[in-house]
């Protein structure tokens, strides 16, 4: 999977929860889930669970702690996928 494919998959995952359409359209690795996409924190739990389902990985509490922006999410997914 290329990094662009990964971003696209993440875009599909976060879409139902975003509250800032413009930031969503321009989503990059630097995009922050809460400050830019305005995802409320309860929905960030849903994003975590959706990522687990989509990539068939388990996100432990240490990984979840860093789940604040797209880049961190990509790093977590890439690391977990490598270790499978």
């Amino acid at each position: 999977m290329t990094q662009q494919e990964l971003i696209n998959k993440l875009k599909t995952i976060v879409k139902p929860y975003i509250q800032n359409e413009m930031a969503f359209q321009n989503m990059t690795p630097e995009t922050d889930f809460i400050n830019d996409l305005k995802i409320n924190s309860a929905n960030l739990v849903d994003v975590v669970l959706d990522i687990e389902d989509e990539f068939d990985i388990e996100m432990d509490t240490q990984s979840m702690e860093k789940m604040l922006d797209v880049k961190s999410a990509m790093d977590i997914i890439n690391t977990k996928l490598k270790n499978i």
Partner: protein
Amino acid sequence: MVGNDIVDLTITSPINWQRNGFLQKVFTPTEQHYILNSEKPFQLVWLLWSMKESAYKMYMQQGGKRMFAPQKFECFLEKADKGMVFVEHLIYQTKSKFTKKYIHTIAYKTQFEGITKLISFTDTSEKNQSKQTHMLLKEEIAKHKKIKLDSLTILKNKRDIPQLYYNNKRLKIPFSISHHGTYGAIVFCQI
């Protein structure tokens, strides 16, 4: 310092927390035990959630590290509407108000003396809600401190924490803003 969090119960469907894995991701084993043995698990989930969130806001104001770690904020309830949240070496007190439609929690160090105001939105846009809660805070501060509304501004600092300015000079009034669904809330301390 003060933190607050509001949860709109009309938009948090039970599906959300009953989703497989939700409780395990958010709550400690003790908290999960409380929830699963409660007569009102739905209310308890969001009560504990709002305790964690309001404590997190205080923790951030105190220079805490930004993180998404709800489990690290461990809740204890003394009464239905009063509790404590432990994180690292810090302890916060919380008090909550709940109705059928919302739960609102305030986190503070030892006691809270201040103003709390809730607002109900008709507009669902995040941007407009944020504007309205900011305006509410400024109006209340202007009223209670007897200062000019027009000279008040709210700006975020480098750590994304909102701060109050009066004629471009920082006002050190502890406050906290939150919004969720159709509700917004502001609190500030009277010092």
